[in-house]
C-alpha cells in the first residue's frame, strides 16, 4: 500500500484558459429536439437505440418460435427467418449496443465525469445523433421495401449477400442495409471525435488521466477503437454497394447465379471477410470495454470499496483494445484462408485472455472485504461477471484454432457470442440504467419491478444460452430455421429447443416490466436527491438533479483525488467525493 500512496504533490494548476460560452437554447425546439446539450443528445440516442432494440427483441421471439415449434409456425418461411435473423443481429450489435454505450452513456457521462460543461463540439455532437437517426430510419425502411430486408446474415458475406438465392439480395434489402451502415459510420465518427477530444481536452483541473473513473476509460478506449475499426467496414460497404449497383467485382469472382452466369470476374469473397472482421472483432470490444468500465464503477460504488488494482485495470483496457486489432481472422479459421494464419491468430486470441482474466479477478477481488450492498445495480454487475466468465471461457474453445474446427458455425458459436457480447453487456446496460436513472430523472426506479426484471433476465438468459452450447456440440449448425429429419440429431434436441424458446419468451416478457418501470418511475419513483448512492465521482456532485445545461454551477469542480476513495480509514463518511479538498488520505495511485 505504501508504494501506491501519491508522492506527487497535490498540485492543481490554475485555470489558464477562460471558459467558452455554451450555446444556450432559445426555444422549445432547440432545448428538446435540436439540442446541443450532450445530456439531451444522450437521451435521444438511448431512446432511439432502445426503440430499435425492441424491434430486435420481437424478431428474436419470432426466430425462437420457429426454432422451437417449426410445425406450428410454418408460416415463418426460411426467407422470413433469415431476414429476422439478419436484422436481429445487425440491430443488436450496431444500432443498439454500439449506439447506446457510446452515443447514450458516452454522451451523458463523459462531460459530467471529467468535469466539463459539455462536449467540446456540441454542434457536431447534435449532427451525430441526427445522422444516426437517419441510419436507423433507412434500416427500418428496408422492412417496407419491395423484397423486404436483407437475409444475408449480419456478416453480409458475399457473393450470397448480393445474389438471388438470398432475400433482399437482388432487390432493395441489401442496398438499404449498406447505405444505413455507411450513414451510421458517418454519424458515429462525428460523435466519436467528440468523446475522444472531450476526454483528452475537456477535463477539469486536477482530473489527471489516472484519476478518471474506469467508465470513462472504457468508453474512451472503445471510441478510439471504433474510430480506427469502423473505416474498414465503411470501405467494405462502399465496395459491396458498387458490386451490387454498378456490377463491379471487388468481392465477386465468376459465379453462376441459379443457372445464369453473372458478368462478375476476379473479385475475392475472402477480402470482404478480412475487412468485415477487421472491424468486427474490435467491435466486440467496442461493446465490451464500456461495459467493463461501467461495471467496475458499479462494483466499487455498491461494495463501498476502491476498485482493486486500478492501474492494472486501465492498462488491461488499453492492452485489450490494442490486441483486439490483431485477432480478427479467428472468425475465419475454416474460411479457406492461408492455413498458417491459424497459428498467429490463435496465439494472439488466447493472449487476449490474460488481460481479460485480470479484469475478472480484479472485479471479484474488489468484493473481498467489501461492504456489499445488494442494490439493483450491484445485482446486475454480479450477474454480468458470471455471464461474462461463462462466455469468455467458451471463447477459449473457439479461439484455439483446431478446437474451433468442429464447433465453427454451430449453435455453440451462437451460445458463446450471446453470452459474452449479447447478454453480458446488456446486463451492464440494465445495471447502469438502475444506477444513473436517479441522476437523469431525479427519481429512483421501482425496486420490486426491478427485482422481478433482474431475476427473470439473469436466470432466464442463463437457461437459454448455457444448454445451447451443447446443441452446438452435438453438431447442429447455426442459421438453420428448422432441423428437419437428420439422422445424428436425437429427438431430445427438439425438446431442448422448445425449452429454450419458452425461456426466451419469458425473458422477453420481463423486458416489458422494465420498460413499464422506466415510464412509471418517471412519475411515481422515490425522490432521489443529488447523490443517492453516496458515490465519489463528479456526476453525483452537481448542483441540482437532473443537472442543468452546463452541468456544474458557476465554478467548475476541481479534482483532488481519484475516483475510488471509498471507506478511507479515518474519514467520517465511507466515501470522499473527487472534488473534496480535505487533506485526509488522498488515496489511490499517483
Amino acid at each position, binding site marked *: 500500500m505504501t508504494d501506491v500512496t501519491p508522492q506527487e504533490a497535490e498540485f492543481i494548476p490554475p485555470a489558464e484558459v477562460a471558459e467558452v460560452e455554451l450555446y444556450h437554447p432559445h426555444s422549445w425546439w432547440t432545448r428538446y429536439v435540436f439540442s446541443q446539450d450532450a445530456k439531451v443528445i444522450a437521451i435521444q440516442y438511448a431512446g432511439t437505440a432502445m426503440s430499435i432494440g425492441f424491434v430486435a427483441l420481437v424478431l428474436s421471439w419470432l426466430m425462437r418460435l420457429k426454432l422451437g415449434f417449426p410445425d406450428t409456425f410454418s408460416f415463418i418461411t426460411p426467407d422470413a427467418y*433469415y431476414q429476422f435473423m439478419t436484422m436481429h443481429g445487425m440491430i443488436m450489435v450496431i444500432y443498439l449496443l454500439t449506439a447506446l454505450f457510446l452515443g447514450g452513456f458516452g454522451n451523458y457521462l463523459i462531460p459530467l465525469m471529467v468535469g466539463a460543461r459539455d462536449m467540446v463540439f456540441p454542434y457536431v455532437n447534435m449532427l451525430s445523433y441526427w445522422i444516426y437517426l437517419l441510419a436507423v430510419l433507412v434500416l427500418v425502411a428496408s422492412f417496407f421495401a419491395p423484397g423486404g430486408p436483407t437475409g444475408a446474415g449480419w456478416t453480409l*458475406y458475399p457473393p450470397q449477400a448480393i*445474389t438471388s438465392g438470398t432475400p433482399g439480395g437482388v432487390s432493395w434489402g441489401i442496398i438499404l442495409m449498406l447505405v444505413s451502415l455507411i450513414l451510421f459510420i458517418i454519424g458515429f465518427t462525428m460523435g466519436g471525435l467528440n468523446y475522444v477530444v472531450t476526454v483528452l481536452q475537456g477535463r477539469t483541473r486536477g482530473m489527471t488521466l489516472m484519476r478518471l473513473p474506469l467508465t470513462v476509460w472504457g468508453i474512451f478506449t472503445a471510441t478510439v477503437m471504433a474510430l480506427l475499426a469502423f473505416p474498414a467496414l465503411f470501405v467494405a460497404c462502399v465496395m459491396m454497394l458498387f458490386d451490387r449497383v454498378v456490377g463491379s467485382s471487388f468481392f465477386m469472382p465468376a459465379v453462376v447465379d441459379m443457372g445464369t452466369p453473372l458478368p462478375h470476374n476476379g473479385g475475392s469473397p475472402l477480402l470482404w471477410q478480412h475487412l468485415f472482421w477487421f472491424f468486427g472483432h474490435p467491435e466486440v470490444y467496442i461493446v465490451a470495454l464500456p461495459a467493463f468500465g461501467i461495471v467496475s464503477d458499479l462494483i466499487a460504488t455498491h461494495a463501498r470499496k476502491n476498485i482493486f488494482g486500478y492501474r492494472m485495470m486501465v492498462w488491461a483496457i488499453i492492452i485489450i483494445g490494442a490486441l483486439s486489432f490483431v485477432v480478427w481472422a479467428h472468425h475465419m479459421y475454416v474460411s479457406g484462408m492461408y492455413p498458417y494464419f491459424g497459428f498467429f491468430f490463435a496465439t494472439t486470441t488466447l493472449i487476449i485472455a490474460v488481460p481479460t482474466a485480470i479484469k475478472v479477478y480484479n472485479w471479484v477481488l474488489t*468484493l473481498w472485504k467489501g461492504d456489499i450492498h445488494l442494490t439493483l445495480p450491484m445485482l446486475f454487475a454480479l450477474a454480468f461477471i458470471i455471464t461474462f466468465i461463462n462466455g469468455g471461457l467458451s471463447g477459449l474453445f473457439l479461439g484455439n484454432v483446431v478446437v474451433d474446427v468442429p464447433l465453427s458455425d454451430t449453435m455453440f458459436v451462437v451460445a458463446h457470442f450471446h453470452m459474452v457480447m449479447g447478454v453480458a453487456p446488456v446486463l451492464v446496460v440494465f445495471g447502469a440504467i438502475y444506477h444513473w436513472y436517479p441522476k437523469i430523472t431525479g427519481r429512483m426506479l421501482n425496486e420490486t419491478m426491478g427485482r422481478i426484471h433482474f431475476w427473470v433476465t439473469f436466470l432466464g438468459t442463463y437457461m437459454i444460452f448455457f444448454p445451447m452450447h*451443447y446443441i452446438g456440440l452435438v453438431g447442429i449448425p447455426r442459421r438453420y430455421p428448422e432441423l428437419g429429419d437428420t439422422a445424428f440429431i436425437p429427438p431430445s434436441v427438439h425438446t431442448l429447443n422448445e425449452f429454450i424458446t419458452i425461456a426466451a419468451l419469458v425473458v422477453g416478457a420481463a423486458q416489458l416490466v422494465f420498460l413499464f418501470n422506466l415510464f412509471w418511475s418517471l412519475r411515481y419513483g422515490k425522490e432521489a436527491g443529488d447523490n443517492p448512492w453516496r458515490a465519489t465521482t463528479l456526476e453525483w456532485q452537481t448542483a441540482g438533479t437532473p443537472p442543468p445545461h452546463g452541468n456544474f454551477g458557476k465554478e467548475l469542480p476541481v479534482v483532488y483525488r481519484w475516483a475510488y476513495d471509498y471507506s478511507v480509514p479515518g474519514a467520517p463518511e465511507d466515501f470522499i467525493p473527487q472534488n473534496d479538498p480535505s487533506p485526509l488520505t488522498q488515496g489511490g495511485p499517483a
Partner: protein
Amino acid sequence: MAIALVLVLIVIGSVLFHVLSPWWSTPIASNWSYIDNTLVITFWITGTVFAAVVLFMAYCIYRFRHKEGVKADYAPENRKLESWLTVVTAIGVAALLAPGLFVWSRFITVPKDATEVEVVAQQWQWNFRLPGVDGKLGTSNTRLVSADNPLGINPDDPDNKNNIIVIAADLHLPVGKPVNMVMRSIDVLHDFYVPEFRARMDLVPGMVTHFWFTPTRTGTFEVLCAKLCGVGHAFMRGVVKVDTEQDYQAWLQQQQTFAQMNAAAQKTGALEHPAGSTNEVAAKAN
C-alpha cells in the same frame, strides 16, 4: 443473500448438466480424435476456472454482505497478488494453446498418400468428382458451367476424360485411406460439414480450398452445409458412405466418367444417368 446461493446452484447445476446431459459430440468416424482430446482438455481447464471463480464470488458476497457498522477494507493494489494471478493465467492459456497448435499443424499437413476427391457445391446440392485411371483431376472453370456440364469441367483437357462425375448423389469413400477433399463452389460460400468427421472447410467461389481426413469406420454420414448460402441453406444435404474396399470398388464401377456423361448428353440432348453402365477403366485404376 439469495444471489450467493444462486451462484453456488449455478455452478452445481452447470456441472451436473455437463455430466448428465445426453448432448455430446457425435461418435467420431475419422482420425481426428486429437481434436476431441483438445476439446476435452479445454472443458476441464475452463470448467475448473469457472467453478473456482464463481464459488469464490459467492463466498465473498455471503461473507462481506453489508452489516451495520462494518466498513470495507481500503486496499488499492497488491502487486504481488496481481503478478501471481497473471503468471498462473498465462500458464493456463499456454496449456490450452500448445496442444491446439500441435494438432493444427497436423490438420494443415496433408499426407502424401492421400487421394484427392473434389467437392463442387452449388445452391443447394453437393456434387463430387473423382480422379480417373491416371489419378489426376483435370482443369475446370466456372465459366464453363452449363446444363450439360454442371461442374464446369474443361472438355479439352485430356486429364478430364476419365474423371468420375457424381451429380447430387452419394459420395462413397474407402475406409482407412486418407483423403484430401479439394473443394470448389460455383455460386456462393458453402461449408462441407460432416459432424462425425470433425474436420471441415468452407467452399469459396473463385478459390480451391481443401481439408483432409481418414475415415475410420464404415457407415452412412449426412453432409450438412454449415455456411449460410441462401434460403435453401438448411436443406442442402448430402450423404457420404464409408465402405469397405470391396464395396467401394463395386460402387465405383457403377459410376460414369466425364466422357461417358458427354456421350450420353449428346445422345439424349440432356443429362441422364446411364444406369447400370460399368466403368472398367476406373476399376482398373484402383
